[in-house]
């Protein structure tokens, strides 16, 4: 069965129907992405769900993205290689001023009626991490928003129960941010003398075998 409408047609309808509310639309590899401002998000989501020409009745996915090191590579060929596993690898620059907001929340919607998908991107500034919650529009967003909060620290205004979900009880930090080390910050072991689990700073070193290269 073929799609009832193409992504391009959907893009035209979206532009007509929601003109002025969306900042950007793009069709890439047959998938439509719209970029919206967070103040308009809830209104747009509601019309995407309820309007007859859209009927996106399902929120398939919601995730956070951290653009901190977007487009950076870590490969320097100026000098001869040193030693160890990470020869020639430069560390990424975490202090670089980003030219656009650092975070984004990406929503993937599915319309079963139209057999069509749409992607919504909301850019989130690191200074103001509050994004309106869509839990009352699609109830399934509950855990996805908790996950984005847990892993990226994005706050969802109006979420009924914004707790951590994937990380450990009492975890500190947001592990999927680009400046959070892959090896983590704390390690835990059982201490025989104290007869309890103790947390200590990690004792291992980060080891990345293949540098990040952009060609």
């Amino acid at each position, binding site marked *: *069965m073929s*799609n009832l409408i193409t992504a391009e047609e959907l893009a035209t309808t979206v532009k007509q129907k929601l003109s002025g509310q969306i900042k950007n639309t793009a069709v*890439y*590899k047959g*998938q439509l*992405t719209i970029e919206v401002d967070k103040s308009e998000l809830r209104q747009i989501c509601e019309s995407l769900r309820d309007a007859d020409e859209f009927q996106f*009745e*399902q*929120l*398939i*996915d919601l*995730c956070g*993205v*951290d653009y901190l090191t*977007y*487009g950076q*590579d870590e490969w320097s060929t100026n000098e001869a290689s040193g030693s160890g596993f990470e020869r020639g690898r430069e560390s990424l620059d975490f202090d670089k001023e980003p030219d656009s907001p650092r975070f984004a929340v*990406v929503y*993937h919607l*599915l319309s*079963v009626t139209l*057999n069509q*998908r749409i*992607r919504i991107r909301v850019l989130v500034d690191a200074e103001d991490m509050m994004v309106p919650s869509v839990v009352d529009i*699609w*109830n*399934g*967003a*509950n*855990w*996805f928003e908790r*996950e984005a909060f847990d892993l990226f620290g994005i706050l969802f205004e109006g979420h009924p129960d914004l707790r*951590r*979900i*994937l*990380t*450990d009880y009492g975890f500190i930090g947001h*592990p*999927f941010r680009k400046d959070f080390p*892959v090896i983590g910050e704390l390690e835990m072991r059982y201490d025989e003398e104290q007869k309890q689990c103790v947390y200590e700073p990690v004792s291992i070193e980060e080891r*990345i075998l*293949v*540098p*990040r*290269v*952009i*060609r």
Partner: protein
Amino acid sequence: MAEIEHYTLNFGPQHPAAHGVLRMILEMDGETIERADPHVGLLHRGTEKLAEIKPYNQSIGYMDRLDYVSMMCNEHAYVLAIEKLLGIEAPKRAQYIRVMFSEITRILNHLMWLGAHGLDVGAMTMFLYCFRDREPLMDAYEAVSGTRMHATYFRPGGVYRDLPETMPQYEKSPWRNEKKLKELNANRQGSLLDFLQDFCDQFDSSVDEYESLLTENRIWKQRLVGIGVVSPERAFQLGLTGPMLRGSGVAWDLRKMQPYDVYAELDFDIPVGRNGDCYDRYLVRVEEMRQSNRIIKQCIEWLKNNEGPVIVDDHKVVPPTRADMKNDMESLIHHFKLFTEGYCVPEGEYYAAVEHPKGEFGIYLLSDGANKPYRVKIRAPGFAHLSAMNEMSKGHMLADVVAIIGTMDIVFGEIDR
């Protein structure tokens, strides 16, 4: 008499019916569930973060370990996303092989689900029957990839290698006499396709066997009919996909609606339920096994009659053969570059979804043009299903919670990622 308030009960994470590491805080009124709060994340390994520090191909193996009972379906979504961004398409034969193994995986997954669901509800025999039939399928996995579970067989651009012409044989040992040995090796005399053909021919009667044990079984029906009812509207709201959605009567299957690889050329039906309860979801999944069997038969037929390459001939993405690598300088360079650095994927984003045995499994891939993904988001069907736990179990008895966990087909590898 003392007033008895609601009390809370801690279920898991070490409970045999919790399917791994599910911890649930149940707020109970007597034996009735008032509120269920699943605590997940006990198996969180940060797969998405790990994928960000590795070249694309090195993460295929991580995909197997997400939902570790439907390994190749996870790989399928991942390689489809990469292929789409690279702008390549697998050769026809590779697509048929991938579809065939995706369906083998679906049967593997549903057998595991049926066995465990039966066991949870009290049908011990099911577990043994299902594991008996999983065995030949795992042997097929092993014959093609060398491992029984974590295959890493699908690659961007096709599959790792063509189907083997011979099947491994059972060997003589002190506890197997000549006659038994001959019996065990009887269906392993031909190629892998012959072996699978033999499996497919008898699998429908195996499904009949399961159904004769369960479908009209009074206890089974008492435990499942009317339990965990979800209306289609609520299923959409809660983000349910796959058999959880079809059980509620929505005929939505990505293999039909948004076909990937060669699904559009194959003939199969989508079973749907009517009442949206655990029993209907059971019927849907059992019928899906029969349909998967149909698809596998069609794939075997096609693969037997059509030869061809199984991976694209582009050495910027796919490593050359070892023989070429030893004899040809250019192939050696390609080989070296691919295994030390990998390939760069053009800047862009793509969301690839497949009809995973549990629901819609998606990979959202964001690339900034590097040899490693910038962000991989894994959309796990079980995550959305488990978040519906509270709503589905409200008002049911404690024992029904186990039936509802069973019907969701929960595997923690994918939920916690």
